[in-house]
């Protein structure tokens, strides 16, 4: 008897153990070393014991099945497998982050200008201690047209207090509405009057920074900062429309079990994400950030990795797919990182390059992880 994983289930090998990714159910099954060896045998189309309780268990989970003969399993996937080899395919741009401004009178303890690290800083309003002059409204409009030519799927508008130049915000937002089907807008809840919130909510999906859980309404998404030093088991128990943003200057001490390092980093998978993560970085890929002063960044939190200034250049020149373009960052798949290369969870794990750089000083560094793939062991929190 033979046993093969189903068309929707992929076996990914790590240094010691393997994992099965079910791209329909979204589940990832971590295997022991012995179980991994069994699946190795199965996937090589070698005979197995039909009474093997592990394999029977997989069948019960609807992950694989027994076959009386050697069988070929064509895998379910996203797109065409030879698409990766077709040169000249236009880049898929899912999100462009546009920082319209860099002004704010608030002095939030977690603001980017304080050089602080945040697990979801990219969704914060943030201002920065940076030189430069703001891009003109006309340049922002041209940029939005350029993004529509590139078929950018969504715009994320942010940049300090957007009410500081309310007319500019309105003009750009209304222009963007004519060119983009999906617009997100980020600001601190206290920046906006109720009337402004109504207006913005009618033109964009709002993500509101707040320090006060009591003001939260169901109709918007909120970003709530949580001090790393004060994290507790309950920290994650919040309604779905609240995103917890873990904030720290150094993330020290880096104790095992933190949401930044534990199994919680591993997300559910799906066909698109699995295919995507095989080649590309799980977060940086398919996005580009234009800072308030025209600097083009791979991510709003990676301020030291500017690709150049857009003031006198067209956007496409940053997306040529060459060494000096944003795709260099997109292509940092986890499989290209030393620590992750041999990890069986590399196609489902989240990764924040900005945080890793803050901790290691290295674009390819990796310390925010409790798992040792060479031993197949997770570091456990102290009892």
């Amino acid at each position, binding site marked *: 008897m033979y046993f093969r994983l189903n068309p929707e289930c992929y076996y990914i090998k790590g240094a010691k153990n393997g994992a099965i990714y079910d791209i329909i159910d979204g589940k990832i099954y971590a295997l022991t070393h012995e179980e991994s060896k069994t699946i190795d045998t199965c996937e090589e189309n070698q005979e197995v014991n039909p009474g093997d309780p592990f394999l029977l268990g997989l069948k019960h989970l609807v992950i694989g099945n027994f076959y009386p003969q050697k069988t070929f*399993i064509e895998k379910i996937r996203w797109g065409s497998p030879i698409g990766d080899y077709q040169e000249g395919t236009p880049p898929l741009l899912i999100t462009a982050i546009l920082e319209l401004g860099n002004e704010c009178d608030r002095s939030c303890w977690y603001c980017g200008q304080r050089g602080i690290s945040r697990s979801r800083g990219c969704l914060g309003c943030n201002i920065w201690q940076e030189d430069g002059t703001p891009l003109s409204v006309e340049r922002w409009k041209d940029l939005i047209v350029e993004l529509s030519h590139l078929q950018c799927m969504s715009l994320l508008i942010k940049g300090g207090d957007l009410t500081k130049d309310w007319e500019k915000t309105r003009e750009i937002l209304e222009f963007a509405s004519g060119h983009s089907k999906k617009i997100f807008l980020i600001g601190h809840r206290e920046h906006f009057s109720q009337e402004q919130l109504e207006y913005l909510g009618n033109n964009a999906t709002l993500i509101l920074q707040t320090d006060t859980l009591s003001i939260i309404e169901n109709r918007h998404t909120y970003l709530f900062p949580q001090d790393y030093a004060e994290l507790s088991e309950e920290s994650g128990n919040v309604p779905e429309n609240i995103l917890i943003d873990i904030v720290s200057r150094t993330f020290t001490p880096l104790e095992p079990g933190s949401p930044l390092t534990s199994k919680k980093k591993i997300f559910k998978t799906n066909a698109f994400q699995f295919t995507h993560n095989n080649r590309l970085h799980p977060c940086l890929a398919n996005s580009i950030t234009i800072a308030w002063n025209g600097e083009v960044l791979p991510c709003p939190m990676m301020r030291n990795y500017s690709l150049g200034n857009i003031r006198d250049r067209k956007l496409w020149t940053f997306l040529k*797919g060459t060494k000096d373009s944003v795709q260099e960052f997109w292509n940092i798949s986890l499989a290209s990182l030393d620590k992750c290369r041999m990890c069986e969870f590399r196609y489902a794990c989240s990764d924040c390059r900005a945080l890793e750089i803050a901790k290691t000083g290295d674009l390819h560094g990796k310390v925010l992880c409790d798992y040792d793939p060479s031993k197949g062991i997770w570091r456990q929190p102290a009892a």
Partner: protein
Amino acid sequence: MEFKSQSGNTYYYDGEIGIAFPSNLITNKPISENPSQMKEIPAAEKNTDDLLFYSRYLEKINRIRPKHEAAKPKKKLTTEEIKPLILRQALHQIILGVTEDCNLRCRYCIYSEAYPHSRNRTKKKMDFSTAKKALDYYVSLFLEGREYNPVRRPSVAFYGGEPLMNFELIQKCVLYLETTYPELDFIFMFTTNGTLLTKDKEDFLMEHGFYVNFSIDGPKEEHDRNRVYPGNKGSFSDMMKNVRRFMTEWPNRCGALCVFDYKTNPFELDAFFGRSDIPRLTVVNMPSDLEGCTYYDQFSPGEIEAFQKTMDIAFRDFLEHGTYGAGAHSFFSQLFAISSSQSLYTAVVLASREQDIFPYSGACIPGRKIFVDPKGIFHICERINQYFPIGNVETGLNFQDIATLINGYNEHLDSCESCVINKECGKCFVNFAGNGSFKNASALCKNEKCRLRDQFSQVFTIGEVRPDQLNILVKDHYTWLSKKSPVSGGD
């Protein structure tokens, strides 16, 4: 659609999802009657282990099945929608038909009398004024299109007839482009029968980074059977003299395009293409079987049957020994693994087809390649007949004509919506092009399912015996293709 591998396994091709499942994975036919297998299954489910699996599996698969919506009227593309689509998705290559003349008279040439709907050989040559206008227009569109697709590289191919019969024009074009547009990194390529490739010409081509496709059908006897001069003298010796010299210096700058038919001895081809002095195989094909083609009239049923028997033996050997001669580059790897799996590997699963311009078939958007004939008329590609022009060097691409062509083409895909293999289909404008109008898919596609069934059977048989080999061969082949050209394959 069901098909069987040679081991007797039955597979079911699910046209909605676009892959083939082992049929005992999705039917409620129990795989094992052995009750001992059920030991670990919870008591409540003991007697329904297999049935439960099938029902759960079908429920799981149905979650990714496209939703059946009420038939919508097909959207017609407007002229205004075409240009941005072309700027984004097309312009991958301009092909200059530098001459319609050729020094050979290959018997299966689509410009021969065997193909009544194609043009015949003429003495026409393109002049530099026409070529320059075509190139300038292509570059202008390419530059405009960078804002829509920044990763494309401009590519110029030279085609014939035999393009070396107008080598002077090739030289002028290359020097003109390099001088006029020094900031652009052009890809240059051309396809040749190799007989006129002198050392001087080779030096020029290599100095300017050309990639060369040689038409080579195999060893002398095989090559000379079809690839002949007027008067029927074979061209093998002249071709090989030049190819050998080329291969000593530039083995990675060329490939071989091989055509075979029912008189071919496949074992001899496999040994031949395994040699180190022969360029790597890029494509293997049988002569085009376009509407009205008479080439195949020469083969008797006995010859066809004998050839198929030989191929069966070759396939069994391939399964047993893996690859031959040149490994992944071998004739049998190309034929059995790469060509046969093309439908399987190019099929788009789960993601929707590009822009829904072509809901069915494998057609490229006109303008992906722009073929320019010696008179300066633009055509969809070098393979389509002359009845479907898309512009000319004086006025550029005609976006209205292109919209009309696409809409007309889609209207003729009358049987595709209900066709189970519509995700795998590789047919395109060339296949449906008649004398000025398109043929209906319902009239042309009668044998497609049989053809695909045979291909799937072959590929799934290889996959059963050598689960990894298929992926390795395909990956190796397409990686190599992508390095040599922005538009895969050659002609």
